[in-house]
């Protein structure tokens, strides 16, 4: 989840899907990356719970996951865990006190 939206291409896919569902070929046409690369990005987004897919005829169509808010909350939950752990390390390192005596 943490890395899912850290990639600019995946963010762009997320934004395009916010406008409405798209087939993989349609996404590839709007992006400067290959179709297999788009599929790979979609796989990451799907595993992160941000998008869902559905078979429509011969095409696989992707859309944003309406449950994405839950995923977003999970993302922030992990983000703050990491940020505070890093903060603690810096504080206790003592170097956080930048005041010169």
């Amino acid at each position, binding site marked *: 989840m*943490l*890395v899912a*939206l*850290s*990639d*600019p291409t995946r*963010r762009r896919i*997320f*934004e395009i899907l*916010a*406008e*409405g*569902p798209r087939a993989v070929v349609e996404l590839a046409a709007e992006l400067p990356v290959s179709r297999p690369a788009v599929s790979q990005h979609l796989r990451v987004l799907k595993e992160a719970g941000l998008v869902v897919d*559905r078979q*429509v*005829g011969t095409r696989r*169509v992707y*859309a*944003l996951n*309406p449950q*994405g*808010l*839950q995923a*977003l*909350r999970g993302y*922030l*939950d992990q*983000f*703050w*865990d*990491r*940020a*505070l*752990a*890093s*903060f*603690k*390390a*810096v*504080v*206790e390192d003592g*170097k*956080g*006190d*930048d005041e010169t005596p």
Partner: protein
Amino acid sequence: MTVVRKTITVEAPAAIAFRVFTDSMDRWWPRSGHHISPAGLKQAVLEGREGGRWYEVDINGTECDWGRVLEWDPPTRLVLAWQIDATWHYNPHLVTEVEIQFVAEGPDRTRVELEHRNLERFGDAMENIRAGLDLGWHNLLAAFAQATVA
């Protein structure tokens, strides 16, 4: 489910914890992916005053806003406006609050309590997405049905 709460205890006086959290934010802010610019994060900056800006500077020197300081009560309390949306972009219309309290548990020990709230405001955006999504599926399936019949 619209709030994230975190508590961590640090072995330092509250004044130092507060200062590191704010003045030295750049030294602890997680690097990978937690920034807006595709160019990469050079610096995370929090201006230490009420109304102060909270922003990033990328490696090209471009500044991107993250939010602002809503309340500034050193060394015990800080409220930030987190205005980064679900796609990690600054959105001036989105305001979620991050409140951080620094509670002295001793002369050299501070409990830091963080609350990131108003996450339902992301939900409003998600609700719009959901409305668009339903319509999108509807149109798509309708088009498919027509194509099948034709």
